């Protein structure tokens, strides 16, 4: 891969200097879309964070720091820290589940590779909310799972799955694990198997070869997966709503509350900006990491 890089770069430069400006046209739809729907709405949220509400509960532009000041309430910090913990734990569990799955499919899937990946992806075509709702019925106290466990003596009348921290994290893992499997699969699929063979030839045992050859080679896939899982998990409110109890409320639930029941868009916007800030710090770390990786690869 490292060998290919210089040549592909020089080819690109040649195309540019040849006056081919196709790329501009290709970028246009994406640029318009992002400015229109992402950046503009972000600006709107930032502006509304210092806005006000009228007597109808409608948000209005203005300058009022009540919403921002309300963030000092320790309740928000507590919930934010809890969400961060849940999201990180979700990332870790997703990684532990996804790696063996992606590894098996990529290296031992043979001609069933595509079918196996499809089998993983297809259930995710169904809406996340609908699937979570389904789980909340399946895992309910009189639902099939607990009834079966009670019948074989593995659970008693007080055992519950729903409305616990375990339930919320299980929901998050279930909801987002596919975002970890796909980039890991892509990384493992690209992995040159002869590297593993070389590791074995150099007297590396299976564990050492995995730790020092396979794992570093797929580090970028794992990093991409971690980001893809972390971002939605951190802002999620569906899992905590359907699988959690009063002690599992996440920051997404509070934000949703502010926009709906509270009709307090300024505070909701301020909370959103706070969440974005936390996520940006994480993203920044990721970008620095990948840039360092790229620099290493180029050397």
């Amino acid at each position, binding site marked *: 891969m490292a060998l290919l890089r210089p040549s592909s770069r020089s080819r690109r430069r040649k195309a540019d200097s040849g006056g081919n400006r196709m790329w*501009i046209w290709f970028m246009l739809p994406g640029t318009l879309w992002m400015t229109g729907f992402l950046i503009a709405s972000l600006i709107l949220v930032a502006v509304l964070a210092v806005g006000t509400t009228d007597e109808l*509960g409608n948000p209005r532009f203005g300058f009022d720091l009540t919403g921002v000041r309300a963030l000092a309430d320790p*309740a*928000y910090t507590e919930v934010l820290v809890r969400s961060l913990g849940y999201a990180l734990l979700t990332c870790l569990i997703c990684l532990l589940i996804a790696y063996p799955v992606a590894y098996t499919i990529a290296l031992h899937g043979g001609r069933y590779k595509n079918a196996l990946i499809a089998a993983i992806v297809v259930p995710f075509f169904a809406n996340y909310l609908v699937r979570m709702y389904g789980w909340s019925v399946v895992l309910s106290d009189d639902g099939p799972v607990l009834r079966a466990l009670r019948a074989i003596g593995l659970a008693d009348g007080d055992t519950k799955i729903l409305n616990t921290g375990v339930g919320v994290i299980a929901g998050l893992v279930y909801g987002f694990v596919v975002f970890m499997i796909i980039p890991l699969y892509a990384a493992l699929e690209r992995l040159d198997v002869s590297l593993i063979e070389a590791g074995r030839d150099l007297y590396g045992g299976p564990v050492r070869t995995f730790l020092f050859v396979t794992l570093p080679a797929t580090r970028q896939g794992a990093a991409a997966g971690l980001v893809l899982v972390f971002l939605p998990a951190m802002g999620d409110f569906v899992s905590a709503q359907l699988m959690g109890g009063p002690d599992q409320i996440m920051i997404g639930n509070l934000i949703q*509350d502010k926009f709906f*029941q509270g009709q307090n868009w300024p505070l909701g916007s301020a909370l959103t900006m706070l969440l974005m800030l936390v996520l940006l710090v994480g993203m920044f770390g990721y970008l620095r990491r990948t840039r360092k990786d790229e620099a290493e690869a180029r050397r």
Partner: protein
Amino acid sequence: MSPAPPTPPTRRALLRAGACGLLGAAAAGCGFMPAQRPDAGALAPVPPRVDGDLVYFNWADYVDPAVFKGFEKEYGVRVVQSNFDSMEGMVAKLNAGNRYDIVFPTAKWAQRLVRGGRLRRIDHSHLTNAHAIFGTYTYFADPWYDPGSAHTVPFTAYKTGIGWRRDRIGELTGSWKDLWSDKARGKVFLLDDRDEVLGMGALQLGLDVSTGDGRDLDRIASLLGTLRPRLRGFSSDSYNNLLNGNAVMTQAWSGDMAAMLNQAKDPSVFGFQAPKEGTPINSDCYAIPWNAPHPGTAMLFIDYMLRPENVKKNIEYIGYPMPVAGTEKTYADLVRPFPECLVTQDDLKADLFFRNGGRAAEDARDTAWTHVKAG
């Protein structure tokens, strides 16, 4: 075709295009600027007459489809349906300039829309069936949310109480304190609704259900703090929680309990009580937005919906009582296992509606709710 080859946009042009997109999107946010009040002449009542198809905007499944069919056939118009999933969503659509002929706000939201000058006036003398409401249910002749019911006609009414599993914990004592019962510990849900939860606390302390006073709210929050460790969660899905056994007791809306009767194999295992400290009341109403394209058809629709046979069909379909004289028995029959679902004249007189507060009061309630919910 121009002879010169088309010049591709430069980087600067691209930035300019992006900036235009940005401005356009920001302009879409102009709904957040102070809105102009529609002029009063545009809000004058109109008589019922066919002036186009009916553009209908309501909660999903909140009218018997057979009633729509009957209306379409009788007046030769179509009913163009769309649904909202929250009051906030409905008002956002109205504010964005979407045009509907008929909408169904709750009392609190009706007041906001009336104050904002967003509803066309309705002349009750135009409605042949209006006396069945206003003649008997005098509360609605001059409700707090719309003086003289000048812009609205009541549609449904409902109350909040406690739903529970008789088969698991036996009988209750008829008080909101039952939520603290040790028999139900860990299997109690509260509605995921700020007003309902704070209101329940207020009723036990003898305070105003809509209080926005800081000291009142502190007392409510500390009372609810003693319930929190006994709670399983905040959820408005009361009937599923009772049916699937997650809850043995839950704060519940009467309409949901009535709807549960269709789902439950044996309704006698469930109960619904309206606690003696008082039960919050709410109602939905018909309203015609100021910019309705076909207000005449909307008037015809309201009158058609108020015909006793249609009221009965709707009551049976949605499980909510309607304040229309002569239909009380239909509802009483429907909810025979839960007689306390009925909304009586006395319930209305107790007047435990959730009211709109000023900005400071709403903020204080919001903060109290965050503390109750997030602990």
